[in-house]
């Protein structure tokens, strides 16, 4: 049996799953320290044998985003870019918010190294230069280091060699190499590596706290964290790469919706209290955003689901004349402020109750909401959700739509652009289910000159590297398959230079052996 937990902004949800069967579910308020909310949710779903039969706990959490937003527990961090003499105009951390930059110390260095697009060195590593940087970092009390190198996804040797050098000079420093988070775009990749480096201690501490809490409940099963792309990482990997867990909520919710509905290709509409998130699933995984993603004001190239959010949910405030729904929401104060709970704010939930779509609070308190307002409001909600669904779709063909989340009753079942609308049972804990059922994966992105090595060899090499990364992340080797393979020809370049991206996923090792 598995336990899935999703720590959201308002609620911490947990589910107990035996294979495909949901045995128990719980919703608890998210606590300030996160851990006690997780413990409360775990306690509610633990089977009678106090955890002996649990094979794994899968956790999706907002820990790390909160640490960045609150700037708590972040390590004094240095960024070392291997690139000289290139890229000097835009030094590391160039577009960071000032407060976050000072919260992590903001020590930046540029040194010789890095590669051209075709693998030539821009310049060789200079260990005298690196030695001076190490001295200065020690003087500044640096505890974490992010290494970036120009074209390190093509050739990571400089990052690795310089990283190993700093590790010898500063044995206690936590070092993140930018090539390990993959993508092209040095500023965004370097930012992601820096966020990861500064979160190092938070990652280790929070994982340790959750492990201790699990042990106090008698849970000795391994802990896994959900990543932004819908796959899992084991606790050792998560402690090294907390940044990969930074926004797993929407992904978990979409994956859970797919699981509950039995669909692998569909549009998921998650209607929460304040926002509605809409995303597309392809082969059971969320489609990834092609644009840069901002985390705590920092531009990154994380593997994030392409989710469109609108400020519309069960707590959205309804202004009757002229009719405006949201963006203001009563949020977590729904049970004090909504009319059906005796408050004096007209919310989308009140409209749902007045229209007989939902049974919460006291329906007599909304009996004076007139039927024309009710109808116009529901039409407006439907129109806005349909518009977002249409933005998320990749083709004009009708697609299945899966509705989940507490506010999903606001959306009617005949939707433009849908060939069917499903509202699966347990949609209120789709996110925790998504965490529980996650697989493990590996992703690589590299530039090849197909004139030099040939397309077949390039594809074979990138496939095997993606599979290797999935296995390293804990996948059962025989179950791993390549689920995405993209080729992007680079314009203006001779030699048929092509960027190839591959992603492999497989079942978690323990599930098959257990």
């Amino acid at each position, binding site marked *: 049996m598995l336990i899935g937990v999703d720590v959201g902004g308002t609620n911490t949800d947990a589910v107990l799953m035996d294979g495909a069967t949901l045995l128990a579910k719980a919703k608890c308020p998210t606590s300030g320290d996160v851990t006690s909310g997780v413990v409360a949710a775990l306690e509610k779903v633990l089977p009678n044998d106090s955890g002996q039969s649990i094979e794994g706990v899968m956790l999706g959490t907002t820990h790390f985003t909160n640490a960045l937003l609150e700037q708590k527990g972040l390590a004094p961090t240095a960024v070392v870019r291997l690139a000289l003499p*290139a890229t000097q105009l835009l030094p590391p951390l160039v577009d960071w918010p000032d407060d976050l930059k000072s919260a992590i110390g903001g020590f930046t260095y540029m040194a010789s190294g890095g590669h051209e697009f075709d693998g030539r060195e821009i310049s060789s590593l200079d260990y005298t230069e690196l030695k001076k940087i190490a001295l200065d970092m020690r003087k500044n009390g640096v505890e974490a280091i992010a290494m970036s190198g120009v074209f390190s996804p093509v050739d990571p040797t400089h990052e690795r060699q310089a990283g190993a050098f700093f590790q010898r000079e500063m044995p206690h420093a936590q070092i993140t190499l930018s090539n390990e988070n993959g993508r092209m775009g040095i500023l965004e990749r370097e930012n992601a590596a820096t966020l990861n480096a500064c979160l190092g201690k938070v990652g280790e501490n929070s994982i340790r706290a959750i492990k201790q809490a699990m042990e106090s409940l008698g849970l000795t099963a391994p802990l896994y964290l959900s990543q932004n792309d819908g796959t899992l990482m084991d606790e050792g990997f998560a402690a090294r790469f907390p940044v990969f867990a930074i926004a797993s909520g929407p992904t978990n919710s979409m994956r859970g919706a797919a699981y509950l509905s039995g669909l692998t290709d569909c549009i998921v509409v998650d209607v929460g209290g304040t926002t509605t998130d809409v995303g597309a699933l392809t082969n059971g995984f969320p489609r990834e955003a092609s644009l840069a993603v901002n985390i705590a004001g920092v531009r990154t190239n994380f593997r994030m689901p392409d989710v469109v959010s609108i400020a519309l949910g069960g707590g959205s405030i309804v202004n009757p004349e002229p009719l405006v729904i949201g963006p203001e929401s009563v949020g977590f104060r729904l049970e004090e402020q909504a009319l059906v709970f005796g408050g004096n704010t007209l919310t989308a939930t009140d409209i749902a109750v007045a229209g007989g779509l939902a049974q919460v609070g006291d329906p007599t308190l909304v009996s004076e909401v007139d039927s024309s307002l009710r109808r116009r409001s529901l039409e407006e909600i439907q129109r806005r959700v349909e518009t977002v669904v249409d933005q998320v779709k990749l083709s004009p063909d009708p697609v299945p739509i899966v509705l989940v989340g507490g506010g999903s009753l606001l959306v009617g079942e005949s939707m433009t652009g849908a060939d069917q609308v499903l509202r699966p049972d347990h949609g209120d804990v789709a996110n925790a289910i998504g965490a529980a059922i996650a697989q493990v994966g590996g992703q690589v992105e590299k530039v090849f000159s197909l004139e030099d090595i040939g397309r077949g060899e390039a594809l074979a090499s990138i496939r095997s590297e993606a599979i290797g990364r999935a296995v390293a992340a804990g996948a059962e080797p025989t179950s791993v398959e390549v689920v995405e393979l993209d080729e992007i020809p680079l314009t203006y370049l001779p030699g048929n230079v092509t960027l190839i991206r591959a992603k492999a996923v497989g079942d978690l090792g323990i599930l098959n052996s257990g």
Partner: protein
Amino acid sequence: MWTATEEHLESISIGAGILGTGGGGNPYIGQLRARQALREHGPVTVLDPEDLDAGSQVVCVGGIGAPTVGIEKVRDRQAYHALRAIEDFTGKKATALISNEIGGSNSLEPLIPAAMAGLPVVDADGMGRAFPEFQMKTFFVHGVSYCPMAISDEKGNTVVIPNAINAKWAERLARAATIQMGCVACYAIAPMSAEQVKRTSVLHTLSLARNMGDAVKMARKNQQNPVEAILKVHHGRILFNGKVVDVERRTVGGFARGSMAIDGMDAYRNHRMDIEFQNENLIARQDGQPVCTVPDLICLVETERGEPITTELLRYGFRVTILGFPAPSLWTCPEGLAVVGPRAFGYDLEYTPIEV
């Protein structure tokens, strides 16, 4: 005359994104680089071409290379070195710089060497929009020489091409050098007199881009229609309004060619527009009939926010308004059309000026 500061960069980027007719690439890094140069070296004077005095020497600077490489090996300050090389070669100091195009990050490139050298930039450019190929500049069409040309990398290497027999050769030699330099370089070309600038460049385009960007930002702030705001700043019209329903792309000879289909909404319901592009939008057809052809400008903006949409970012579902603007007369003359008319891009189609 005005002074370009950090505060203007976003507006110029939005405006240049619209005038870029779908090309110009990701503006983020270009904007960040210009901001950094202005922070380090101070603001730059933007000079009205009418105010250039007789002894002026105006040099065109820009970036050359693969945009996909430029996000990794971010372009440095090498336009400054290319500029100095042209000065050494001609034995004449530059008195001002000029952009080669008013689309994407190239419209901001001259600000970097200008800030470093303490020179003004001229409020004009060599396209009045964006175009995919090197020879497609009004300067060249109207008699300014391609050479000398200087190309510099970030390491200190510079290549000077004193002569090329035609634009194709100039392009070929420049590209060979650029690839050796790691596919991210800057060039300085076409030293011009005041008379040449006034006669061969598209005038006041930096101001136009800035005003367009300001108008869009103001409209967003006041919750007004950004499309109407754009049309108040520049003479043109709405060609179509609808939703992107299909995008097809292929890479041909190093360029992103393709087409998109847009289903009409509101006043254009039950109509369809097809647009063909080669990095930039070239031909717009409504229900099969051409309504706007290159070199006239076919500009896509997101209907609600007025945000320019580049061809790379296009995909199903975008709500877009398509704007058409007349091309400058430097392009619509026979010499101009020979280089950038529909036939120059392989279409068996006459150029018909857009009706506004």
